């Protein structure tokens, strides 16, 4: 299967300041992928590279096996839709905003109008055609911008922090539209987030970024330290994590929060990485629960909100956590 994006040794710098360094990354057709990480992790920069509004300082980007070059950047850009975190609408009507991109692609007046109206309908904004685009609410602005991107029938839709600056209803509606486009047209979706539980139910895969590089797990469960016991364990200074394989080098251990198991009692056969701790925070929404457990280190665990165990948990509850071998990586 030809990947939508293939990135090889891609780096990006603003002036002398390096902000992104991705050695290898692939996005497959039909995937819904989240780029997750804290502020400054390089998510938006990576999204802008994928939208071809920025060019990498080094490395190659392939879009459906077509290598990004200086002379094809505009044609590639026209195959991608990007919804900015805080989108800009032109000083004209709502429909005027949708028509411009279509006219650039040589659409006839009638076709452009039909596509624009269809797109507005798909985001629930029928009847908004002749409204002044600059006088819309934040949620409406976001939906007009989404309609503007969708009207162009992109091969990939990129969304920068779609859950920010929107109320719960607008988020729900946006995600519904995104899932619908993905299901009906097989459009690949890449979105950025700093709050995985909010998008967990929507995405097929999460790519974690930290400090401009792809890391194997959520930054929340990333602990610095050093190897010990001849590379068979990792000492964070507070806990000792047994490694599944001998590691030659590494200064951080990452634990995938979606794979960590919780038990309210001591397991019958505790594995090598079972830790006793206390629930220090508990949040749920969009079908997922995010639990923070202080077990020497502060672990984040992401689980389904309807799991029976979750209803037993409360702040201060003593629990055991087990780290399966496939949840641990050292780098």
């Amino acid at each position, binding site marked *: 299967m030809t990947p939508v994006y293939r990135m090889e040794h891609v780096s990006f710098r603003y002036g002398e300041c390096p902000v992104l360094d991705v050695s290898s990354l692939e996005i497959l057709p039909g995937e819904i992928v989240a780029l997750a990480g804290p502020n400054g992790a390089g998510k938006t920069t990576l999204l802008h590279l994928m939208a071809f509004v920025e060019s990498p300082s080094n490395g190659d980007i392939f879009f459906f096996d077509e290598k990004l070059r200086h002379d094809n950047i505009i044609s590639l850009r026209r195959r991608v839709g990007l919804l900015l975190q805080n989108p800009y609408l032109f000083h004209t009507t709502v429909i005027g905003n949708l028509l411009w991109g279509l006219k*650039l692609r040589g659409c006839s007046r009638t076709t452009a109008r039909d596509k624009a109206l269809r797109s507005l309908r798909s985001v629930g904004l029928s009847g908004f055609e002749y409204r002044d685009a600059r006088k819309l609410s934040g949620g409406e602005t976001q939906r007009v911008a989404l309609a503007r991107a969708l009207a162009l029938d992109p091969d990939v839709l990129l969304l920068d922090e779609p859950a920010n600056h929107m109320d719960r209803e607008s988020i729900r509606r946006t995600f519904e539209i995104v899932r619908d486009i993905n299901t009906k047209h097989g459009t690949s979706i890449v979105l950025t987030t700093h709050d995985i539980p909010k998008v967990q139910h929507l995405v097929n895969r999460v790519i974690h970024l930290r400090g401009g590089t792809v890391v194997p797990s959520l930054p929340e469960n990333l602990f610095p330290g050093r190897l010990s016991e001849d590379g068979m364990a990792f000492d964070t200074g507070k806990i000792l994590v047994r490694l599944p394989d001998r590691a030659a080098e590494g200064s951080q251990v990452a634990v995938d929060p979606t794979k960590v198991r919780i038990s309210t009692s001591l397991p019958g056969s505790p594995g090598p990485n079972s830790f006793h701790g206390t629930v220090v925070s508990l949040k749920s929404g969009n079908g997922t629960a995010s639990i923070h457990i202080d077990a020497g280190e502060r672990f984040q665990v992401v689980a389904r909100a309807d799991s029976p165990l979750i209803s037993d948990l409360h702040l201060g509850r003593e629990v055991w956590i087990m780290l399966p071998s496939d949840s641990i990586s050292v780098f």
Partner: protein
Amino acid sequence: MRFFIDALYNALSLVLGFDPEVYLVVWTSLKVSGIATFLASFVGIPLGTLLALKQFRGKQAVLLILNTLMALPTVVVGLFFYALLTRQGPLGDLGLLFTPEGIALGLFVLALPIVVNLTLAAVQGMDPRVFVTCKLLGATPAQQAWMIMREARFAVMAAVVMAFGRVISEVGIAMMLGGNIKGFTRTMTTAIALETSKGEFELGLALGILLMAVAFVVNALLFFIQRSRG
């Protein structure tokens, strides 16, 4: 005071009586200023946009020169073009000296740095998201520049109005390149200067009132356009 009131009364009679001499002068002024502003906008708006969007070596020097040209003394422009357009000058064969076209040429040079500089400032001061939005919608650099000019249209319109205000109210260029020929190159400002020196205070004042009225109408138009579309 009596003298001033009488002069004002006579001036208003000339204005409201549609005195042909007065209105020919007004027409000449509007014509040369209009042509100069139109040409300065035609060249200056794209140039200002381009300068704002492009990075190149020596850009700072170009900006410094443009800023200096904003304060160009009109008599210097008049003198410079007089030397170029005079019969012995390099452009003497064009026969533009002491013609409305000659005045318009000088006024164009006066208006151009104003339009370029204010367009440049308008584009540089735009919401930065507009640039990335144009790009991500797939616009070519020329299409991006066009859309950016459209987005900056109200500020650009103000630049054009300012340039028009500057050229319609200047006297040095019109005097040196037009020669203040009655019925041909006499503009409102050269007529005011001449009539006042001749003691024809009423005619000078009448033209002054019309000059202010033109400035008011142009600014009022801009104000209403900005209010209704802004």
